[in-house]
Each structure stands twice: as structure tokens, then as C-alpha cells.
């Protein structure tokens, strides 16, 4: 499949100009499109013979979109592009009359790119940043003080971490169909029954560690500073790790696994905000955990499940409930890890009512307020 395209595609027409422009716009929105994709789009357009704006748009969506949310947002992006194109064109016309007016520096980048194209200026490709390790400065910075860029960076880091976790191998071996490591013992055993001739080779591999994770995240008011970040974290983590169930709670418990799995982050966050009326409300950890173990205890908890609870331990529910729930969770899971953002403060003592009750049933109690602590907590998994 070489890229041999008919002559009339190579020729610059207004359609191909438009297409290149749109591709450039999409790239600025995070799409990775190669030249081959653009060529494919042109070929597709040629095959279909553009009949309407609708068919033009659908061809491009089929070829350019790569996953569900790109598929869903494509129409909006296309409209936005058309709008900006119009705006850029008007700008050009205006500019001819008022040459002296200064541009505002805060204009959107895609608009700039469009105008560059209209004015026939060579595109300024992204300049390379001077290299320094951003992680150094981030390690000890509190999550609540981070800028969006830093958050993005951390999320990417988390996703890699989750991927690595997913591929961890157990020490046990299992029979394998991959012919990499010969299991001599099993080969001999299984061939004995046929006499001395070895006719069947048996291979083994390390069993994958089938660890399940249940994440319970507190989104009550006292956690407000951290909860958006935590949801983002859960999102990143769930993208990389698939044996995971995610819940959020404040005064009631909500399963958000499906929401995180099917939408991109912003949309997911929006939906969670709508569905959960008690967002930033009070906390009833005890009731929520009781609820969790009653509803899902049998189906989700077993010897391979690690339960991660992200909360500050401020409980306004009735006493005794939390302790009881924690005892039951602890009994039926592999490990219970409680991550507390307040615990990073050197003067912190786990002396709130809730924490005191829960503490005996927690295997790992760790602070989670910056990257270093997060990394340590992940090691405990």
C-alpha cells in the first residue's frame, strides 16, 4: 500500500487547501494526523464525490477520528473551525483598512495559525523548549498549588505508572502458549506417557498479577481543594489500569467507573457533577462505606483486591459505623490503604473521631499531597 495518488489530488485546489487548513486546526486541538491521513481524506473525498457539506464532514470524521470522544466532538470542532475561518477572513478584510491597530496578544492560537495561512506567512512551527527535568521542581509541590500544565504532566506520569502496574507479573508460573520459556519439568512429565520420545514442548510464563483495585474517593467540602485533582487522578489511573472500580462519596456513594471509562475527562467531570447533588457537601464516610460493603462487598472484594480510600477522615455520621465498615472491608480484602492529604502536614495527628475508629483496620496509612508522597503510596500497592 504505497502512497501513490493520482495527479489531480496532488494539485492544489481550494478543497485540498481547505482540508490542509482543517487538519492543521485539528492538530492544534491535540489530534495526531500524518500526511498519509490527509492524503487518505482526499482520496476518500474523491471517491465519494462531494455532494454536500454533510458528506464532506462525514468522510473526514471517519478518517480523522480515532476514539469515541473524538468521534463525538468532531461535529463541534468542525463548526468551530468554520466559524474561526470566517472570523479570520473578516479580520483580513478589516486589517487592510486599519493597518495600525495592534493585535491583542491573548488571541487563540488556532486563530493565529489560520491568519498566518491567510496572510501567506510561513507557519512558525512549534519551537523546541529548553530541556530541564520538570519533575525535580514538582516532586515536593502541594497538589492544591499546581498549575494546569503541571497537573497534566503528573497525570501522564500516573497513567504510565498504572500501565506498569497492569503488567506486573506474579512469582507463580503458568502454562503458556507463547514459546519463550521452556518448562522442562512439565515437558518431561507430559511426554512420559508416550515413552521416551519428546514430541510436545511445554512452555511457561509468569502469571500476571491479577490485582483488583477499588478506589473510594471523598468529594465532600473538606476535600474541595483536592477533589477535582483526585478525580483527574482516578481518571488517569483508570485509563491505564482496567481491573479497577471507582467510587466517589460525600453523603452517598456513587459508582463512577462507567462514566470515567466512556467519556473524556472534562465531560466525565461534568456528568459526575450533575449526577452527584451532594458534591462538596458534608461527609458521612461511615454510612457510605457500609453501603459499599453491603452492595458490592461480595462481588468486588476478595483476596486479590486492594482498597484505596482517599479521604481526610472528617466524618459527620454516627459513630461506630465507620469502624464497623472498615473492619468488614479489611476482613475481605487484601490490603486497605488510606491516603490522607492532610497527613502531609508535619503537625498532623490522626485524631479525628473517624480516623481513630478506622486506624486499626488500615494496613497502610499515608499522606498524599505531593508527587513524592503519591509515589510512595503507589509503591505500597
Amino acid at each position, binding site marked *: *500500500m504505497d502512497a501513490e495518488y493520482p495527479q489531480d489530488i496532488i494539485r492544489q485546489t481550494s478543497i485540498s487547501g481547505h482540508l490542509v487548513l482543517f487538519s492543521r486546526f485539528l492538530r492544534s486541538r491535540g489530534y495526531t494526523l500524518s500526511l498519509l491521513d490527509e492524503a487518505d481524506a482526499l482520496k476518500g473525498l474523491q471517491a465519494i464525490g462531494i455532494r454536500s457539506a454533510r458528506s464532506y464532514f462525514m468522510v473526514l470524521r471517519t478518517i480523522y477520528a480515532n476514539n*469515541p470522544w473524538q468521534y463525538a466532538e468532531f461535529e463541534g470542532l468542525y463548526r468551530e473551525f468554520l466559524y474561526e475561518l470566517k472570523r479570520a477572513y473578516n479580520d483580513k478584510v478589516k486589517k487592510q483598512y486599519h493597518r495600525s491597530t495592534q493585535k491583542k496578544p491573548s488571541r487563540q492560537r488556532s486563530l493565529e495559525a489560520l491568519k498566518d495561512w491567510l496572510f501567506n506567512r510561513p507557519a512558525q512551527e512549534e519551537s523546541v523548549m529548553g530541556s530541564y527535568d520538570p519533575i525535580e521542581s514538582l516532586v515536593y509541590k502541594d497538589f492544591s498549588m499546581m498549575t494546569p500544565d503541571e497537573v497534566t504532566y503528573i497525570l501522564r506520569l500516573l497513567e504510565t505508572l498504572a500501565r506498569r502496574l497492569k503488567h506486573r507479573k506474579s512469582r507463580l508460573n503458568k502454562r503458556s502458549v507463547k514459546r519463550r520459556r521452556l518448562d522442562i519439568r512439565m515437558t518431561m512429565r507430559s511426554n512420559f506417557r508416550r515413552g521416551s520420545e519428546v514430541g510436545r514442548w511445554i512452555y511457561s510464563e509468569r502469571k500476571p498479577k491479577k490485582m483488583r483495585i477499588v478506589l473510594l474517593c471523598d468529594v465532600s467540602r473538606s476535600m474541595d481543594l483536592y477533589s477535582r485533582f483526585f478525580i483527574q487522578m482516578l481518571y488517569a489511573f483508570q485509563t491505564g489500569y482496567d481491573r479497577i472500580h471507582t467510587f466517589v462519596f460525600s453523603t452517598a456513594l456513587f459508582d463512577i467507573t462507567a462514566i470515567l471509562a466512556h467519556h473524556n475527562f472534562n465531560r466525565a467531570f461534568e456528568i459526575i457533577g450533575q449526577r452527584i447533588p451532594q458534591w462538596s457537601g458534608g461527609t458521612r464516610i461511615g454510612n457510605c462505606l457500609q453501603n459499599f460493603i453491603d452492595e458490592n462487598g461480595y462481588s468486588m472484594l476478595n483476596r486479590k483486591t486492594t482498597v484505596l480510600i482517599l479521604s481526610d477522615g472528617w466524618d459527620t455520621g454516627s459513630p461506630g459505623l465507620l469502624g464497623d465498615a472498615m473492619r468488614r472491608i479489611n476482613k475481605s480484602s487484601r490490603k486497605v490503604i488510606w491516603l490522607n492529604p492532610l497527613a502531609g502536614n508535619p503537625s498532623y495527628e490522626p485524631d479525628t473521631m473517624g480516623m481513630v475508629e478506622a486506624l486499626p483496620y488500615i494496613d497502610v496509612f499515608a499522606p498524599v499531597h505531593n508527587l513524592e508522597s503519591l509515589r510512595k503510596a503507589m509503591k505500597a500497592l
Partner: protein
Amino acid sequence: MSIEDIRKILTSHDYIPDDAIVMSVFLSIRLSKPLLIEGPAGVGKTEIAKVLSEGLSAELIRLQCYEGLDAGHALYEWNYQRQLLYLKIMEREGASREALEDEIFSEKFLLKRPLLEAISKEKSPVLLIDEIDRADEEFESFLLELLSDWQISIPEVGTIKARNIPYVLLTGNRTRELSEALRRRCLYLWIDYPSLEKEIQILRRKVPEIDTALAAEIAAFMHEIRQMRLEKTPGVAESIDWGRALAELHIDHLDRSLIENTLGVVLKDWQDVRRATDSLSELLEKTGIKSKIG
């Protein structure tokens, strides 16, 4: 082949496509690129491949993916037993060593598995790689060679180039995120649950004996039930099953007790059944189905 032909092929085999589906299938054939279809369970992803193979009168080769699927099962294997037997026979006849070596790694002893079979056919078949997200990531990257260059390398034989490029359809329902590399080699289609009108059409097409009013009621009910937060949201396959079951019983409209008794056809999880029964009155009110009292 034009876009209208594709539409005709799909509709004539009882598949009711929307514009996006027709367009993607058409482009995938025209550009000889694999088509990755994603969407919730039971919306007719696999069905497209079946219909397409019938419509193009091409053979359907299906590779069902599962965890641990590897090259040996998907591509080719040497027929080891046969090679051994052959060696023994030839030893008795005193064949020369070089001849034997050549002979033993010839196509005669090659067991073709779906992928190799798909590219060595005389006429382009439809290759359906079903539930690709269930296979390991390694297998996914292994597919890349096939999907971009249409060739397979076998160490003993060499590279086998495709005689004809098969029509490749991949399906998945997002149990795992697929790699970017694979996605970029494919065209993409997302199929969602059908709209109300389309579902009625599908029901009437798939279950010809169904009462028109019943079809509308079933579609409306399914439409509402999909809005609920369920463990496993029912797809079109479930509506068809339900329609078929009710048509078999010669029932012409839904009512409360009937739904309660047959909900098991639609919902396959006890928590879902409980949730739906709890809010049945609300559901019925929304769909405008009158409940018979007494």
C-alpha cells in the same frame, strides 16, 4: 462500487444502516483500510461483517480474540505430527537430507490459521477480528504488520504477501484501551444505540410477524430503560430477542405483569432486574404504556 450499492447491500440483508455506517464501510473498501468499529454491546457491530460477507458474496473469516491469543493461533502453525510421520516414512525410503529439509517446511505442512488464510485467498474475503480489546497488547502490535503492509513473515518460508487485500473489520467494546498505533491504521466508526424510529424499523425487519404497535412499545420501553444507570445496558440484540419472544406468544401490546414476567429476556443482571422492577411504574408512565389493573 458506489455508496448507494453499499447501502443496498446492507438493507437487502436486513441491516438498517445510518449514513455514518454506510460511509465508513464504503471508505474502508475504497481505501483498502481496516475499519475499527466500537460501541456498546449488542448494537450490531459483528452483524455488519456478516451482512457484508453475504452481500459481497465473499467468504467470512472470523478471528475471535481472547486473552492469551498468540501468533500460533491467529496466523499459522507447523503441522508437527504430520512432519514427524513424513520424516519416518521418508527415512524408510532413504530420501536425501537436503530434499527432506526443503520438503518439510513447505506449505503442505503449514496449518493456516485465520489471518494467513485471509490473505492467501483467491477472492478477497471479509476478515472479522472480533473483540480485539480482549487480546493482549502484544497481539495488537503483532497485527500492525498485517494491517499496514498486508504481509506476514514466516521465518522458514519467507514473507507471504497478500494475494488480495481482505476487507478487514475489527470490533471492540472498550474493555481495554487500544493502542494509538492500531487506531491510526484504521478508519473509525462508533455505533451507538439506535434512535427510537430506527429501533422500530429494526424490530419490524428482524421480526416480521411482530405487531406494529408492540414494536413501537418495545422500542420506547428499551429507550427509557437505557437511560437508567444499569450494570449492563441492554442492546438491540436484547430488543430483538424480546420482540421475538413476545411475537411467539402472540401478544400485541405490553402491560405491567407481562413486563415483570419477561424482564429476564432483556436484563441479565439481578441488580438491574431489581432496579427496573422498582421503578417500573415510572418507566411505564414515561413510555405511555397503560398498566392493566385487576
